[in-house]
């Protein structure tokens, strides 16, 4: 036992975030002030933000550095660093969203942020894991933290319902993930990817195991037909959580799935790529079609997020470095535009929640007349989600579809662009409501709540949506090493 020999540097950002969570709990425990609902607690938020930013800083400095491993279980490579940055960034934005939003319904802010931080850790682990048990634990950490966060607004029945659905189905899915892992173990007698790569034969165990793992991650990614929980959970959860889930969980799950797919060279891409392609097609098509008829803004965005998972799957289908880069690029872009869109939803939510904590699309009517800037910002997000240049969403799709076509998946790219057209309709409906309708005279929808922190988050995201595509490309990193699985 020689502890100093352990490469803690590999998991330093995770340690920082964990420590922040613990610190948060301790501080809260020591100095628990009596707070009324509606009062904002600044200390936990600031601590959280500092922790997240510190971890992000660590990941950023590590970027481009040599690959390192922690006992063959966690691998710190550029893929992991990029994922960390995405997850941490999403978390920061989510915290900004929650800052003034959370006190509307909950006083337990320290717990909230602690759970958020721990979910972040889970996701970061997911991104680094190169061993099945680690992967499983990471997955469970993030899942369970998110179950709780989904139901965090205990006074609200839809939150509880969302949490229950998410939880029951999540646990159900965990069973399949676990079974899949067991079968991989059956194939190779090991849980280390390194061993899987060497010993995997591509027989029944390997293929079925991979299939079951696909199912499990498909669940996390809300891939059709494993998506059904998503609209409900997204709608019921506090908006700050929804936004975080939609972005960060996806990112982590994608990276984990990517690593898994690369871990079994014996199972050729020819066997799983068509499956993923079909799933991608189903996912984007169903997501977009179902979004067409939604009246709730949040639920519409939930379906939209399903559809976007479909687009992103294309990046995995290709199995190329270009595909992965496009996928990561898209995740960044998606983080900007989706977090932003949910930020506006948070602003539009009624302060006295009805049965469903929800912003109807109708709530946005005449927004341009009431809050022009907010409407413009939302329009930017909507158009970016549609994939209209020069917004970042377009470039995300450009790289994704480009990678698909370069890898020979032209039909998938065609499906993708056609889906974008379908999606235009429901995104535009929001702009129609905001710009082309006038608010009902009486009783008009409440004035949107636009706190400073939310404004900051929206500024960041809208700038990102506007400029990211124009001034950056997916050449951020050479990820071919990650693609090779080494």
């Amino acid at each position, binding site marked *: 036992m020689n502890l100093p020999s352990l490469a803690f540097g590999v998991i330093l950002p995770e340690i920082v975030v964990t420590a922040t969570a613990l610190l948060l709990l301790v501080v809260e425990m020591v100095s628990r002030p009596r707070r009324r609902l509606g009062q904002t607690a600044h200390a936990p938020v600031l601590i959280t933000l500092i922790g997240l930013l510190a971890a992000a800083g660590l990941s950023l400095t590590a970027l481009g550095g040599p690959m390192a491993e922690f006992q063959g279980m966690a691998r710190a490579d550029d893929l992991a660093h990029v994922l960390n940055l995405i997850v941490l960034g999403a978390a920061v934005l989510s915290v900004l969203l929650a800052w003034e939003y959370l006190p509307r319904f909950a006083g337990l802010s320290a717990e909230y942020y602690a759970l958020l931080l721990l979910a972040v850790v889970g996701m970061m682990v997911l991104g680094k894991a190169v061993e099945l*048990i680690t992967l499983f*634990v990471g997955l469970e950490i993030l899942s369970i933290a998110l179950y709780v966060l989904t*139901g965090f607004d205990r006074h609200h029945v839809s939150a509880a319902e969302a949490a229950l659905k998410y*939880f029951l189905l999540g*646990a159900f899915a965990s069973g399949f993930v*676990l079974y899949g892992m*067991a079968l991989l*173990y059956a194939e190779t007698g090991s849980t280390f990817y390194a061993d899987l790569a060497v010993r995997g034969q591509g027989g029944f165990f390997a293929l079925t195991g991979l299939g079951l793992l696909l199912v499990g991650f498909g669940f996390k990614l809300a891939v059709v037909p494993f998506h059904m929980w998503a609209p409900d959970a997204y709608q019921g959860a506090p908006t700050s959580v929804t936004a975080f889930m939609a972005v960060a969980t996806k990112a982590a799950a994608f990276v984990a799935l990517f690593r898994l797919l690369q871990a079994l060279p014996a199972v050729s891409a020819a066997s799983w790529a068509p499956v993923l392609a079909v799933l991608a097609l189903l996912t984007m098509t169903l997501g977009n079609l179902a979004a067409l008829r939604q009246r709730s803004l949040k639920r519409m965005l939930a379906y939209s997020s399903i559809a976007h998972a479909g687009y992103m799957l294309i990046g995995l289908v290709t199995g190329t470095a270009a595909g992965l880069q496009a996928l990561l690029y898209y995740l960044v872009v998606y983080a900007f535009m989706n977090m932003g869109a949910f930020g506006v939803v948070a602003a539009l939510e009624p302060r006295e929640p009805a049965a469903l904590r929800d912003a109807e699309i109708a709530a946005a009517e005449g927004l341009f007349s009431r809050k022009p800037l907010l409407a413009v910002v939302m329009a930017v997000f909507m158009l970016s989600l549609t994939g209209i240049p020069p917004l970042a969403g377009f470039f995300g799709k450009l790289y994704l579809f480009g990678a698909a076509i370069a890898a020979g998946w032209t039909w998938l790219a065609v499906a993708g662009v056609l889906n974008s057209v379908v999606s235009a309709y429901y995104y535009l409906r929001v702009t129609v409501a905001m710009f082309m309708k006038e608010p009902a005279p009486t009783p008009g929808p409440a004035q949107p709540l636009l706190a400073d922190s939310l404004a900051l988050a929206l500024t960041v995201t809208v700038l990102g949506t506007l400029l990211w595509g124009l001034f950056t490309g997916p050449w951020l990193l050479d990820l071919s090493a990650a693609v090779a699985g080494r």
Partner: protein
Amino acid sequence: MVPTTYYLVLAAVIFAIGALGVLIRRNALIIFMCVEMMLNSVNLTLVALAQQWGNLIGQVFVFIVVAVAAVEVAVGLAIIMAIVRHKDTTNVDEINLLRG
């Protein structure tokens, strides 16, 4: 010596029974029990495989799964309690406010 395959098949059957339970029962608690049963059957698979491969990885895995299951139960039951507070039921058919 019982062949490992027997254990695997038994585990698969119990896994399937658990899954079926999830599909056809309407009591959230029982659904949850079925999920636990599924996890358990995988545990059995892992332990059997550990013996098959002659290493401890499977056992370690199960150890950790047990811990995970415990946490899941704690959180899950809390969530079910939360629902019961609002709706006074564990019948999942009545929990469909969110749909469409």
